[in-house]
């Protein structure tokens, strides 16, 4: 799509104060060069409809706040340029999450599940209290650490959660992001929560509810591979 032209953007609107019906609204946006979908939403907000609601923060593809469904695929609005998208460009809120207004979703279910796996590593108390104690030593080139280093890049945008069909049909499924985080901390050589963490992720709604669909790998905007984490947890690859 050439830049500097009118580009049709169709936005999925929802306003609970106006009857709560979901509908499509079309806008013709003056698309400048290198204009992102987030820029287009701001253009609509400033020039056509000041009531449009959406979430954003860093505008640089780092925070994950502006994750939404663009032309049917999950992605970051700030990282997708209009010229790379087929018009009319459709923009919808993330799936499997309650919509607050327009493109703004309530991320509480996502973060409740994230919290449920204790998304932090639990260290040895002795290592903190005793300054003479030796910290865990991770050798260079450690294969597990290589995977963990990649998986901790997750920005918790919710794109994988939205793209996962299992999340949509199994309400208790923890989802790709939470399970990825569980692996990243459980595989950390310093983590001591081991079996308790494994018990949580292998219970109902845990790793065995995943059907290896792989949408999470396809959509992750920062290249994290949640399916790999789930498979490694399933194999008990974090046992020490």
């Amino acid at each position, binding site marked *: 799509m050439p830049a500097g032209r009118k580009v049709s953007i169709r936005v999925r609107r929802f306003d609970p104060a106006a009857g709560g019906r979901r509908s499509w609204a079309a806008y013709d946006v003056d698309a400048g060069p290198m204009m992102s979908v987030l820029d287009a939403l701001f253009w609509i907000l400033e020039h056509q409809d000041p009531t449009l609601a959406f979430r954003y923060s860093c505008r640089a593809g780092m925070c994950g706040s502006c994750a939404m*469904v663009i*032309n*049917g*695929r999950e992605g970051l609005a700030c990282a997708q340029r209009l010229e790379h998208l087929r018009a*009319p460009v*459709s923009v*919808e809120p993330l*799936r499997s999450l309650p919509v607050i207004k327009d493109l703004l979703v309530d991320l509480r279910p996502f973060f409740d599940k994230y919290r449920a796996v204790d998304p932090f590593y639990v260290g040895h108390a002795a290592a903190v209290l005793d300054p003479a104690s030796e910290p865990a030593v991770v050798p260079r080139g450690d294969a597990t650490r290589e*995977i963990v280093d990649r998986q901790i890049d997750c920005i918790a945008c919710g794109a994988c959660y939205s*793209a996962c*069909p*299992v999340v*949509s*049909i*199994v*309400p208790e499924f923890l989802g790709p992001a939470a399970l990825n985080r569980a692996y990243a901390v459980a595989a950390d050589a310093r983590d001591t929560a081991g079996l308790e963490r494994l018990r949580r992720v292998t219970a109902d709604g845990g790793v065995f*509810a995943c*059907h*290896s*669909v*792989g*949408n999470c*790998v*396809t*959509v992750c905007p920062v290249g994290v*591979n949640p*399916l*790999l984490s789930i*498979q*490694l947890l*399933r*194999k008990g690859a974090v046992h020490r």
Partner: protein
Amino acid sequence: MVVLVFTHLFVTHYASLPSAATAAFVDARWAAAGWRAFDWTLLLLALTHGVVGVHAMVRDVVGRPVSRAALDVGAGAVTAAFVGLGTAVILTATPTGDRGPLSSYTWIPPVLTAGLVVIATAAYLGVLAAGAALGVRLARRVPIGRWNYPGQWAFALNRTAGAGVLGFLLVHVLDVALSPFAPDLYDRTVAAYAMPYLIPMEVGLVAAVVYHAFDGLRLMLLEALDRRGTRMTVPSFVALVLLTISLSLPALAVLLGWRP
């Protein structure tokens, strides 16, 4: 199980026709103890796999624990009944000539044939409705939800194929059970498989078996390959679709009268 399934598929859909599996064919096959053992093992493995699949689907779509337990018990009871029926038939069947004790029930073949036609019609209408719904959305450029992702198709096709094959397996156990008790009625029932209207369903059945079996192997392989495997989900799905089409076309050719 995959080896047994493909041996069975080769015998009935590639080397011969489903409509040629007459009572005489069944008698000749079960004259050998090895084939009886083969069929019984396949029956047991396929029904066990089926009830495990039903359990997984129930866990996905039913939230209430009581309902889940009830459906699991129901599926287990149906499986046990079909294992019992199939086992009794395979282990005790003896050739009875042209007629058997149930041969006077002449309404059975038309009812079973009508059942096959109804199942085929439902399948055709389902495929047409799904295709039309997808086509309309694409034509109007309306987002098609998660169907944008190959993984979604792989998942849905696996479930659909598994449910379809399980449904046919139950019908198949019933019609084969007719063979020792009413060989003449059984022959009239299997003759219905030669109806042109049922040919698309029979090819669909072959495709469903091929897809479901190789998709299971694909998922096991991808999981075994760890990081490389999770990056191969899309290309492996494309390869699986091509393989399914390639292996289904010979079955279609055989059904249409081609002989090697």
